[in-house]
């Protein structure tokens, strides 16, 4: 058996070790959402963009259009702005799956996630979900693929115990909003399925047309964690999803030695 390197050997697991000085440089972070307004001052550019849409004529039911696009309703730009705030030097990629029409949403969403896994993303922000039971298997398989490929799926959870894919799967980093506002602060929830708490209440977020709005939702908690993981990976690119979870668990605001 090939030898493996333990997460820590004689070193202390501290925030400084984990992401001190980390900027997200070299880490590819995908935002699967309504698109990203690349020119927004809080976003500071995107490395790539692809727009997916439902198309009956396509063999898979999904059409892919690579190249710059706009944000169809602002949500993706809001998420991207938060990731940029936490991990200023990461490479942001916009995978647009929302905004054209609702029909085929589950199919297009799943295709977007598959695209992210196949195109070398290390962190994927999912401030969206589907509650359709029909998609349980599809998203479960994708979550497993992501896990084994070392891709961190960071998903906003629902507030009530109802089905929500892929956020409810064990390998996903599931995030809800907590009350505090420190962009680098987060909690580890010892009572799953929601694993992490991060800022998401009354957050000033980027919006279409270069502006901002004040908004609340788990949608804005997830990108805080996505950004934090990007910072961690920029210093420790070899970490696997379960190691990243171990680090987040150990260094949470509510973790006492």
């Amino acid at each position, binding site marked *: 058996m090939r030898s493996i390197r333990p997460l820590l050997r004689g070193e202390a697991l501290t925030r400084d070790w984990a992401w001190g000085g980390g900027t997200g440089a070299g880490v590819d972070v995908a935002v699967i959402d309504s698109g990203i307004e690349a020119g927004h001052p809080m976003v500071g550019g995107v490395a790539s963009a692809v727009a997916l849409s439902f198309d009956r*004529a396509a063999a898979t039911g999904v059409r892919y259009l690579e190249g710059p696009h706009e944000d169809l309703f602002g949500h993706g730009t809001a998420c991207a702005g938060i990731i940029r705030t936490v991990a200023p030097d990461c490479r942001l990629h916009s995978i647009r799956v929302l905004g054209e029409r609702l029909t085929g949403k589950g199919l297009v969403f799943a295709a977007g996630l598959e695209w992210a896994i196949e195109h070398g993303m290390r962190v994927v922000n999912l401030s969206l979900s589907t509650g359709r039971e029909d998609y349980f298997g599809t998203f479960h398989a994708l979550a497993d693929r992501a896990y084994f490929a070392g891709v961190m799926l960071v998903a906003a959870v629902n507030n009530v115990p109802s089905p929500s894919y892929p956020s409810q799967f064990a390998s996903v980093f599931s995030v809800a909003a907590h009350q505090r506002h420190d962009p680098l602060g987060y909690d580890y929830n010892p009572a799953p399925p929601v694993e992490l708490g991060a800022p998401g209440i009354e957050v000033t977020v980027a919006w279409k047309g270069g502006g901002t709005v004040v908004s609340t939702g788990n949608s804005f908690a997830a990108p805080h964690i996505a950004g934090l993981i990007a910072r961690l990976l920029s210093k420790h690119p070899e970490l696997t999803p379960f190691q990243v979870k171990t680090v987040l668990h150990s260094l949470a605001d509510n973790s006492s030695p």
Partner: protein
Amino acid sequence: MTEAAAVFADLARVLDAMGPALVPSGSDGLLTRITEAARELFGAEACSLALLTDDSSELVFTTASGTGADSIVDLRIPSTQGIAGWVVMTEQPISVTDLAQDARFSSGIAASTGYVPRAILAVPVASPRRLLGVIEVLDRDASRPGAEQDMRLLQLFADQAASAIESTRVFSDLGRAVLGAVAAHPGSDLAEALAAARDAAERADNDGADEHGTDDNGDDDNGDDDDDGAATSHRADLVELATLFAQLDQLGARERRLAVDLLKVLVRDRGGRGPRAT
């Protein structure tokens, strides 16, 4: 075909074509009470429920209470626009304040109702099987004690609304399946018509099972918001259920009672696992 049977077949065809317009109004009272209760609890200006149309292209405000309620009911907006569109697309609850900064959020509603909200709290209304719509609370009193739990609370109201809507729709879908079968097979008796409809639905299901969007029967009328394969399969199941009911009816009172008891046990058991029902 007798004259009465011909009239019935015509009627069935008309009713089947009308589709969602026929959804029984059984849940209306409950939905109105849900919006009223939410508005009062949150100290809000208004609360409204908007449901997706069968093709998911629009949201229709079906129930409302508070300021502007009269003018917002029956208002239709594209399902990809505004806060409501945001909620149905992401299936995530959202709260936005300082709306006045950005008229895009509410201009459509504001224009129709004459009321411009400063803040909206909106959560998805969904059953385990499908996304149904969105419930919105306008200008709630966010300074009252416990207001930080509003999003979670409104989601509970939304789940109540979803249960009410789904239980009504199950019966109306079943009714539509029966009507559709009779309309498609005039002259045959109900059991024959249902059997034929079930076979047709199963054929369509098999044709469309392997490739998305290739079952080109244009039949997207059951409110399914995602893909046609699931929609057809759902229709086949409903027709089969209706067929079994029709057959049971011919067996006798004891068998009917036994079947009802079995169904109750199944629903109870299933209810425990049904994620939205817990």
